[in-house]
């Protein structure tokens, strides 16, 4: 993987500069060499190695895989799976600390009326879960919970899931000209005009305006579609509200600003199971699940789940109750073992997943 191995030289001064500056950026990258490759630092320890008693690495690494799913849920796709059933089992009700209104809304006409939504600052506690059908030999290795907060966000999706958008905004002081004005950002976006042969693709644009930073992501969108949406976006000076004109027919919702993530990890040698839960709001979840790309729908016990990933690391995504989205993933487990574990999800003692100090240090990418 050494660079410039098959160098395609060019006399174009711009490309010469490009090559030179890329080399400069690469050369500035610190490569603090890890002298020995250590598989035990990753998701799986080899069976020949003694089990680790501190599972922080396991949680953090497994969370990378789980978060991939999270990203997929949040970002959406062009596939068109059926929304999952969301009926919780009778035993699956733990109260949320705060309830929030269901903000999923249909935009049913062509009036192009501006919509204003408030930043969704609700604090929702997911239900910590374990399973009563743990794959043979696995034992609890670690657990933890953490809270994360980010930019306010609105998600939009077309009825057929062929396109979706995310609008993020937050108060910010834009430093050093790192981000352009909206007009410049739109110019840059327009420069990426679609050609007839292009497949639908991911696009994004970001800009600063007044006291707010904005980013808009489009999946399966045309450049024109994204430009049209971006042109309508404004936010209140205190960042509490966002106004935009949704593309005709799209559903929209305001995503949670604050999330709680909790997880329990089980392990037996190189076989492991991670049950990870995060905050959700009733009524918004079907919209999330509708955006899961390439997920295979299957029934596991009382749940409808989406199966993603391949052996030896399959993953399931499902809704447990009105406040809880579940990511359950395994390493070196069979599909049946994973499905059986998912079908037998049940509330767990929150003491098993105490708050993790330092947030992202231990949970890494789980912080979302």
């Amino acid at each position: 993987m050494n660079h410039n191995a098959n160098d395609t030289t060019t006399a174009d001064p711009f490309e010469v500069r490009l090559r030179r500056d890329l080399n400069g950026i690469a050369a500035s990258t610190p490569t603090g060499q890890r002298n020995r490759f250590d598989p035990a630092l990753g998701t799986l320890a080899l069976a020949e190695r003694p089990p680790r008693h501190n599972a922080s690495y396991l949680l953090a690494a497994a969370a990378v895989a789980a978060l991939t799913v999270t990203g997929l849920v949040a970002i959406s796709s062009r596939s068109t799976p059926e929304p999952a059933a969301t009926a919780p089992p009778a035993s699956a009700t733990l109260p949320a600390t705060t309830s929030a209104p269901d903000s999923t809304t249909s935009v049913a006409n062509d009036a192009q009326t501006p919509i204003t939504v408030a930043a969704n600052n609700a604090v929702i506690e997911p239900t910590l879960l374990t399973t009563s059908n743990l794959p043979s030999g696995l034992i609890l290795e670690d657990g933890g919970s953490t809270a994360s907060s980010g930019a306010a966000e609105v998600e939009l999706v077309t009825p057929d899931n062929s396109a979706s958008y995310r609008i993020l905004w937050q108060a910010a002081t834009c430093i050093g000209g790192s981000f352009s004005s909206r007009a410049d950002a739109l110019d840059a976006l327009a420069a990426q005009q679609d050609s007839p042969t292009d497949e639908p693709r991911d696009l994004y644009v970001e800009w600063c305006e007044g006291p707010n930073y904005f980013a808009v992501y489009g999946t399966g969108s045309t450049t024109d579609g994204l430009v049209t949406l971006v042109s309508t976006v404004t936010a209140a000076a205190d960042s509490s509200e966002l106004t935009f004109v949704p593309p005709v027919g799209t559903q929209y919702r305001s995503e949670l600003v604050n999330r709680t993530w909790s997880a329990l990890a089980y392990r037996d040698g190189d076989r492991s199971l991670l049950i990870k839960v995060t905050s959700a709001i009733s009524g918004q979840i079907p919209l999330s699940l509708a955006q899961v790309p390439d997920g295979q729908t299957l029934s596991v016990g009382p749940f409808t789940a989406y199966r993603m990933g391949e052996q030896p690391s399959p993953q399931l995504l499902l809704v447990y109750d009105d406040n809880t989205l579940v990511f359950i993933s395994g390493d070196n487990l069979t599909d049946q073992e994973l499905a059986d574990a998912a079908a037998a999800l049940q509330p767990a003692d929150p003491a098993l997943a105490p708050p993790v100090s330092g947030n992202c240090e231990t949970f890494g990418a789980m912080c979302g």
Partner: protein
Amino acid sequence: MPDPEFELVDARFQHFYDDQYASAVRLVRMLTGDSDIADDLAQDAFLRVYRYAQGANAPIENPAAFLRTTVTNLCRSWHRTQRSSQLRMVRHGAVDDTLTDSERELDHTLRRLPHDQRAVIVLRYWLGLSEAEIATSLDCRPGTVKSRHARAIRTLRKELS
């Protein structure tokens, strides 16, 4: 007592790791724009290649290319999941003092490109890969590489001129 076969695999892999580690870290940095996570993602990529090699019936024909594809895939996943985190950069205004003005300008502009366009630029102009090799790494058609390249170059020329 350690299994000698595993030790042999480990020794071979260690050699591969020693040879490719710095390049992998740099590729992560180039594809994500983030030095802080480069070590971790590179390590994760090696781990995945190692696990694959252990389970494979035949040797990996081109381990370096396999690693490159793995790194590229991990960076794409990272990019999808870290968009919120990018917002924090706005507040902190991170600046890399080790870069020249020209490099910093390019770095900022690259960050604003869609991941797939950025990857095409990095793979072509830094790694010097052919269109076919880039298509393999990104799991797309050569024609798609060509169109992404055209769009990326158009944007870069405009932004950097």
